[in-house]
């Protein structure tokens, strides 16, 4: 039981502030990779995804777990550390899973014209996360950034929905990067 109930922030005020800053920077500078620490979620969830869950979710943020992420161990861990209610994809404010488990993305809320913020943020577990591959441009990027994305088309369609759409936090081990809906993704 300890293995599941452990793994939260040891010093929540300080660690969650650092983690929040890292997530904020990641969203503000799309494509830039940040190293985060402090969470030890049950396998197979990455440290970075655990940090994002501890920092961004609570009892008022409905969460969807997709694929193998929807494990008993993770359900208990989330219940104890964040209290986020677990919901189907179309009610979720946050979702966690591997890229292929999160498909189709059309299941998630993209916001409403009056409230574009009523949309989902997807925490996408990836097997690799490197500063190479797709070209990113747009707000928060001086010239261009490069990021290894699982595909291009989905992010381009998402950009086309702006100001509606999904936001993404990409996680791999203890590293994370973000891709807000405002970023233009090109296969160059």
């Amino acid at each position, binding site marked *: 039981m300890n293995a599941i*109930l452990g793994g939260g922030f040891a010093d929540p005020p300080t660690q969650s502030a650092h983690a929040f800053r890292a997530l904020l920077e990641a969203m503000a500078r799309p494509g830039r990779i940040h190293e985060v620490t402090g969470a030890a979620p049950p396998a197979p969830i990455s440290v970075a995804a655990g940090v994002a869950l501890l920092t961004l979710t*609570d*009892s*008022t943020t409905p969460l969807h777990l997709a694929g193998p992420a929807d494990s008993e161990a993770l359900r208990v861990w989330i*219940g*104890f550390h964040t*209290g986020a209610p677990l919901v189907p994809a179309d009610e979720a404010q946050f979702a966690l899973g591997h890229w292929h488990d999160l498909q189709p993305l059309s299941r998630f809320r993209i916001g409403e014209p009056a409230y574009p913020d009523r949309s989902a943020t997807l925490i996408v577990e990836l097997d690799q996360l490197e500063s190479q591959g797709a070209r990113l441009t747009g707000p928060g990027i001086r010239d261009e950034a490069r990021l290894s994305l699982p595909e291009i088309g989905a992010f381009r369609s998402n950009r086309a929905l702006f100001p509606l759409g999904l936001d993404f936090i990409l996680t791999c081990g203890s590293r994370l990067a973000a891709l807000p809906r405002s970023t233009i993704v090109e296969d160059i």
Partner: protein
Amino acid sequence: MYVAVKGGERAIDAAHAWLAEERRGDPAVPELTVAQIREQMTLAVNRVMAEGSLYDPDLAALAIKQARGDLIEAVFLIRAYRTTLPRFGQSRPVDTAAMAVDRRISATFKDLPGGQVLGPTFDYTHRLLDFALAAEGAPPPAPKAPVRDEPVPHVTALLDRDGLIEDQPTDDTPAPDLTRQPLELPASRALRLQALARADEGFALSLAYSTQRGYGRTHAFVGELRIGRVAVEVDLPELGFAVEIGEIELTECDTVNQFKGSKTEPPQFTRGYGLVMGQSERKAISMSLVDRALRWHELGEDFTGAPAQDEEFVLSHCDNIQATGFLEHIKLPHYVDFQAELELVRRIRREATQIREAAE
């Protein structure tokens, strides 16, 4: 246009230092402790908790001390502090029928199960200043009487049995939260009640009084007013079941209102509802009158243009922190705005003068 202006730091520091000294008052007089405020200024503490929307008597007492007794300033401090806390969850709806009552009265029925219990009320005092309180001394102990072990049901349940009053069936629609979502109109009754529960007591009182004087009249009787403690029960995910984590004092008012029926509703009594943190019956009665007045649309009544019927008017102006924030900000530097106004008035005057001179 914004223009950065520096300066005033030394003056501000000095002002804060003097404020601290003035707050303390004459050092020859013993300093108030937070516990003294909590125990002896209870109704002020209750008001700060209700309008600050945070139940914590020690914090409210501290806020009153810091605010030099300015209760709206104290509410402001509580609201600001609240924003620094994570919210762990929500309680199950409190069961006011199971309240351990200190006070329970009905203006509609004399004899009712559980009886009329006056509690520690000002109602029958003569409002004569008691100079004995100017001296210190312990009051004689309050008398006690044997407790009758009987339930204290809600009075309206009695009328409900005969179908003479509108039914309020249990319903588990999740409650909207004013503190998490921006206000959208028309608001649900649940949202209006949340806004009224934290509304300024004076504003709620005046609106309620206006309905009594004819501005959206609803002919209210206090069906029941009760004050006491209820348990707060919370589902804890780590346990997998609900536990009582504490007790809070509440004031509840259920009004019974005359209703001659409408196109959609039969003639029967209708209800208004007030529920407020702490012992605060003026606020609870006011809340239930305003709640009832706001229900005109739902009950198919006429909108007479009365302020208490106007949801946008009531909900946009009932919060004293919003109100005082906007009101008081106009005393802060607006040098550039005013400079622009000044230029404008000078130009208009100049033009007006020129036109007049040209005409002459």
